[in-house]
């Protein structure tokens, strides 16, 4: 045991050192910056202020945030509607087929998502492949304007984030034992009742995990909105990016990103609470 002690300390130091250096410190810098003042020559000056947060309450910015959350929510719902049945079917496939289909779900990760976003732009632009196809088929007479719209942003987010919904759902469906459904039907429950009383509650952790994995990145993927959305369909990520890179207002950008971080933390905490509630709804009663 004694010989292991130095190793233990070394490992712990390495992990803590990593977390402090690359997680805690950068975030503290962001927090600190958000309370400082913008300076044109040195980016920030050491004047404490709450101005940056007050500016966030501006209706323009709140509008952007609201619209961003709305697009993220629609994206999440679409991913759930497509991902849920997809994950179910995937989990019920013959074991020999599963690895291949899972592989197909994962393959897009091998290409950078920015590249895939540009590919999407080529597909849906006015002279794009999709329009050409529809024109050739005679379904439309004039090319559709699909690019630079809310729909284009949502489609881009949906495409990039769908695997993040499918994978956690697949994991919960894999754990869902088929005999539970058989037991439900054996006891007289029809398909709908079996779904709402057995399948849904047991897959809820996957639904929540997948939704968070889609919702949280969906408010931050600024390049999707940059490439597909045009000026009107901005994400919170665009606001933060432009403050840091274009407006050179680091304190304001820091405040915006902190707001986003806090919102995400609240959502994650809600996830933690809800999963605990599903696992142990009446813990207190048992202890009593």
């Amino acid at each position, binding site marked *: 045991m004694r010989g292991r002690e130095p190793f233990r300390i070394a490992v712990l130091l390495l992990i803590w050192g990593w977390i402090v250096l690359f997680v805690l410190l950068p975030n503290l810098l962001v927090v600190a910056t958000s309370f400082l003042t913008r300076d044109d020559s040195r980016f920030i000056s050491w004047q404490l202020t709450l101005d940056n947060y007050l500016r966030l309450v501006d209706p323009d910015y709140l509008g952007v945030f609201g619209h961003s959350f709305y697009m993220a929510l629609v994206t999440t719902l679409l991913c759930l509607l497509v991902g849920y049945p997809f994950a179910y079917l995937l989990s019920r496939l013959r074991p020999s087929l599963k690895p291949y289909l899972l592989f197909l779900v994962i393959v897009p990760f091998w290409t950078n998502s920015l590249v895939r976003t540009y590919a999407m732009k080529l597909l849906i632009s006015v002279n794009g492949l999709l329009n050409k196809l529809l024109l050739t088929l005679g379904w439309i007479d004039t090319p559709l304007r699909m690019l630079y719209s809310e729909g284009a942003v949502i489609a881009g987010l949906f495409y990039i984030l769908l695997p993040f919904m499918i994978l956690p759902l697949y994991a919960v469906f894999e754990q869902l*034992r088929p*005999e*539970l459904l058989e*037991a439900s*039907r*054996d*006891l007289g*429950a029809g398909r709908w009742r079996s779904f709402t009383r057995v399948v849904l509650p047991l897959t809820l952790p996957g639904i929540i995990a997948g939704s968070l994995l889609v919702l949280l990145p969906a408010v931050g993927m600024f390049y999707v909105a940059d490439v597909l959305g045009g000026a009107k369909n901005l994400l919170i990520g665009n606001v933060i990016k432009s403050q840091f890179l274009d407006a050179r207002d680091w304190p304001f950008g820091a405040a915006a990103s902190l707001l986003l971080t806090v919102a995400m933390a609240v959502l994650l905490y809600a996830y933690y609470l809800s999963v605990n509630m599903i*696992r142990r709804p009446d813990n207190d009663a*048992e202890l009593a």
Partner: protein
Amino acid sequence: MTASRTERRKIVSLSGVRKAFGNRVVLPGLDLDIYRGEFVTLLGPSGCGKTTILRLIGGFESPDAGSILLDGEDIAALDPSQRPVNTVFQSYALFPHMSVFDNVAYGLRAERRPEEEIERRVGDMLRMVQLEELARRKPDQLSGGQQQRVAIARALVKGPRLLLLDEPLSALDYKLRKQMQNELKRMQRELGITFLFITHDQEEALSMSDRVVVLRDGVIEQSGTPRDVYESPANLFVARFVGEINVLDVRVIAQLEGGRLLAEIEGKQREFDAGQHRFAPGTRLHALLRPEDMRLLPADDGSALPGEVVERNYKGMMLETLIRLDSGRQLQACEFFDESDPDFDYLLGERVGVSWVPGWEVLLADEGA
């Protein structure tokens, strides 16, 4: 026993039921009747089709051909949720997100029973399986035996006409299994519900059932009381599957008066009880002998088969001896300890004579096996 038993009313009747999965024919054409109030056990090695029979009755598989009648009504087209039959699954299949109470109440809630009635019936059932205090626990906070009771209570609470039990005791340790066997028998008696029980454990089948149905490759090899199946096996498969057995080759020499038979066995001439069968001289037969029917005699006993002791296993209340006959064939003998006999034990390599209680052997025609 009870009146319903003597009436012998069929509750389930399978006729000509065929089921194949792909190219694998599991049931080539099964006929099986189960009577009201019976405790029937399907016994067979894994892959013999016993689980498939249960799933066909439960509604989780549909037959390729044949009919399944429940109280005279064809249920082949009914969804499992519509059948008045409940199942105790091998893995219990308890809903992990529900309390014990909610698990047991599930079937009644699906029927949309009033909440007071559910409360009462679930309470009664939990009392019966002695789990009242644990009603609010989750399945993962229960022991294996307690989970087993919940599964049984959940299936019984709806008062099914037939309870299907798919190897429900296989996951329990020996002592708990013994205890649950007794409890299941008690519940079956008290509730008067017909039980169709599956096991591959012949001891369990013999001790629990009114009737044992021995299956091989989807075909019923024998159906009878535990005693019939053990003492008068219909063929070598049943004899070998149900308990330990010694098989010896016999050649008929002559048919004697009074159903007796003179035959040669391992080079010795002995008389056998042929019952109502008649065998022509020269016919080859098998003589089946249970180890506990064997008797070990001194080596010089003229009528006994000579051999030597090759293994002795002390089994607590009995001694199991393995004897190699001079012909090379090995026999097993099981003898209860006799306190008054000081020389009961044998030495390895000791010469002995093997005999048996006359008339306790079973003669079967040679199947070429």
